[in-house]
């Protein structure tokens, strides 16, 4: 095994700015310097890729409902409800009380659509979902736009005369 690097490059600190969830994976998006670091966690294995601001071509924001989460929550609510109804004598009330959180979550998901921010670069892309934090979604979008503009204008500027 080789020795650790004597004077390796010090990475800038990274900060969580958003996340998204799929059927079997969880995406967490971090800001690290002039790039986004995207950690996709699936079955306890994290795959990391980066979206460099210098390569960003398109940034979008839109309002959307997470229908998958709504359906899953409704199904769980129905499952707990059926179990509770079938066992009303033996602890059915406890199981029935479990119906409320998923149904409430599904209702909130339907009534209040979240915001989705996506960043597409030349080679990679990422997406973040903000369920109820609408102001944060717009703040993150504006922050990313500013960072991308700054990075790309810095690179496009001619080198200083020596």
């Amino acid at each position, binding site marked *: *095994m*080789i020795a650790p*690097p*004597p*004077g*390796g*490059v010090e*990475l*800038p*600190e*990274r*900060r*969580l700015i958003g996340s998204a969830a799929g059927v079997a994976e*969880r995406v967490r998006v*971090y800001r690290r310097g002039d790039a986004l670091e995207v*950690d996709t*966690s699936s079955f*306890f*294995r*994290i*795959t*990391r*890729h980066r979206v460099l601001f*210098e*390569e*960003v*071509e*398109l*940034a*979008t*924001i*839109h309002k*959307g409902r997470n229908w998958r989460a709504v359906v899953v929550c409704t199904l769980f609510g129905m499952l707990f409800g059926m179990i509770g109804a079938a066992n009303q004598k033996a602890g059915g009330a406890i199981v029935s009380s479990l119906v409320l959180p998923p149904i409430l979550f599904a209702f909130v998901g339907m009534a209040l659509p979240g915001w*989705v921010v*996506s960043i*597409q*670069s*030349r080679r990679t*892309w990422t*997406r973040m979902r903000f369920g109820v934090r609408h102001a944060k979604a717009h703040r993150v979008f504006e922050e990313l*736009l500013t960072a*991308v*503009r700054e990075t*790309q204008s810095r*690179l*496009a500027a001619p080198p200083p005369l020596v």
Partner: protein
Amino acid sequence: MALAVGSAPRPFQCPRCRAPLPEFTIRPNEETCAACGTTFAAVAFSPPPPVVRGPEAAFADALAVPGTGGQVGATPCAAHPNHAAVANCSRCGVFICDLCRIPLDGLELCPGCFDRLSREGALGAIETHYFDASGLAIALGVVGWLTSCLGLLIGPVVIALGLKALRQRRAWREAGGRGGPIAAIASGILMTFFGLILLAAIFGEPSFLAGLKEGLK
């Protein structure tokens, strides 16, 4: 020498269905995807073309720099006898020219050692896959409470995974994000204590011991 490579023409994608969008429709206002009907605000950028230094450039440099490129008396590269060596591989010590040299993590590697070390996962700078210690700690923490009789077994594992997750966070220089691992560690400690209490209650119970003795007879 630097080569400017233009980006391959690639259509923008709808942020929802990922259907290709014609580039000319992108304006900094409300757009609608023709495929799924999603309305979104889009801002397009014109990134500068990437500047890459390909092998051709390194080859040209190797020939252009005085003292390299087949100079008589110079130590040759192990892979390119016509090139002068500019360094030793940090791992195997072989002479390498500017074309073969791979500077990484403060080391200068030959292509063979780079392949080997990257296969072994010893090069942190090119690592893209990691073990999700935090996710497993939290998941095991939940499973541990659901199967509380196994708390004595699962609790220490949860504590170890939580500590590993904290070390990962520190190594990745992550601001915040320690709540999950700390909660998992606390859960693991409680789970272990609960397991010990359960064990003491089971084995300290006289009727249980009597029943066990009866069963053994």
